[in-house]
């Protein structure tokens, strides 16, 4: 079963050259390696900050653009993993291992749905 890990509240990630950058990069890469070793890794990416977001709504056939994220919350989506786990227990075990979670991020674990006839599902 595919699980999406939505990683919130991890926008203050260090940049190359910052003192903790190398350390965190090593841990994040080690997590991806562990996922590959288990054969669960499908995808995973960081997102650019919400200041780069544009929100699109189509109303009466017209696109309405808003500069900024969809929800005005303090916890923003900062990245994701898509993992193919045996069951929720394995997904939760891996979520606990996500390095960002150890630096204050919150991980929302969501199972990917099956829709009959959908032609681009990863599942």
């Amino acid at each position, binding site marked *: *079963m595919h*699980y999406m890990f939505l990683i919130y509240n991890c926008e203050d990630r260090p940049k190359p050259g910052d003192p903790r950058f190398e350390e965190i990069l090593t841990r994040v890469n080690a997590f991806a390696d562990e996922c590959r070793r288990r054969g669960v890794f499908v995808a995973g990416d960081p997102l650019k900050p919400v200041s780069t977001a544009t929100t699109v709504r189509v109303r009466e056939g017209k696109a309405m653009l808003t500069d900024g994220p969809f929800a005005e919350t303090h916890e923003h989506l900062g990245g994701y993993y898509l993992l193919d*786990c*045996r*069951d*929720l*227990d394995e*997904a*939760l*075990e891996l979520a606990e291992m996500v390095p960002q979670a150890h630096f204050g991020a919150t991980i929302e674990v969501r*199972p990917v*749905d*099956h829709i*009959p*006839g959908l032609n681009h599902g990863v599942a």
Partner: protein
Amino acid sequence: MSDLASAAVEQVYREHRTRMLAALVRALGDFELAEDALQEACSQALRKWPRAQVPDDPFAWLLTVARNHALDRLRHVRMARAKLPAPPPDAVTMTEKQLVSLGDERLSLIFTCCHPALNEEARVALTLQAVAGFTAAQIARTFLVAEPALAQRLVRAKRKIRDAGITFEVPADHLLPERLQGVLAVIYLIFTRGYTASDASLRLEALRLGKLVAALMPDEPEAHGLVALMLLHNSRSAARLSSDGEVVLLADQDRTLWDLEEISEGMTLLDRALRFGSPGPYVLHAVIAALHVQDPVDWPRVVALYAELLSVAPTPVIELNHAVAVAMVDGPLAGLSLIDGITGLSEYHLLHSTRADLLRRLGRRDEAVAAYRLAHDLAVSPADRRFLAGRLRSVEVT
């Protein structure tokens, strides 16, 4: 014949409901479907058995009919909505014999109902419904929630189990200790609810659940510890309230009202649990409960045990109990200074009533009055409120 047949259905259902439900959830991978199928099998039995004969193996009959009914329904849904995911392979390929000889899946059922990905209320409600066989109406009454809200909570939990991939099994070894504590916590919560609501049948149900887990996991000392703890608390329930419903403190309780059989059963279980060594939180709690039924209570040992509990599973309530025991050994001032260092219990009436009692013993009357008043206002149960109102009056007049 008809009465005989319906009595037979009722008997199998009463004795084996949990096992049948567990086997069906295992085979079908879907709580709601399993429950509906079991209901359908029972109503078929009520219709058919009076006219034919009660089958030789009613358990197998019900299970098979339920499984087939569920598969029919899945096929139906699939035809109606083309290309739905196929029914779970277990249920399709399993022969009747395999289905009936499925092992005892009740433990898987309990662990699934108590999965940490479900919120606590859902865990308690689901355990009471699926394992203990309570109706939604009964659970709603017990926890003072509206029945539709509770029913909704149950449906949501069952769908989450199915849709989020919560597997129906006893967790892997590396997850087991933590998950078992979760299961025991749900059972103890049911018990304490039965205690605060003075609901004896709820306490007995918690005991039955605890004994079931202990019987299915004989090598888990914490399961035995929990049963011992519940037995030792329950043994004193008749003495805890006076005939007119007033709270009676331990020291004033009529010991002839204690249930000696439950005490000795609890002690035996506790001995067995202690033989495993390195006692966990429930075993330690049970040892403390066992010390409380001794006369006189060995307070220095109680202090030591609470200190040990604080090192394995610290909670503010344990800190409070520790402070109470310290006050018994080293006097009210020592207890008071520990209580004043506790954070997170400012809304808990027992913290304030304990403080009030210690202040009263120290002769700090005004502070005692204020603390009793606060405790009274925070207390929920009418018996607690009456008890605290009485205390308040007696301090005010001195």
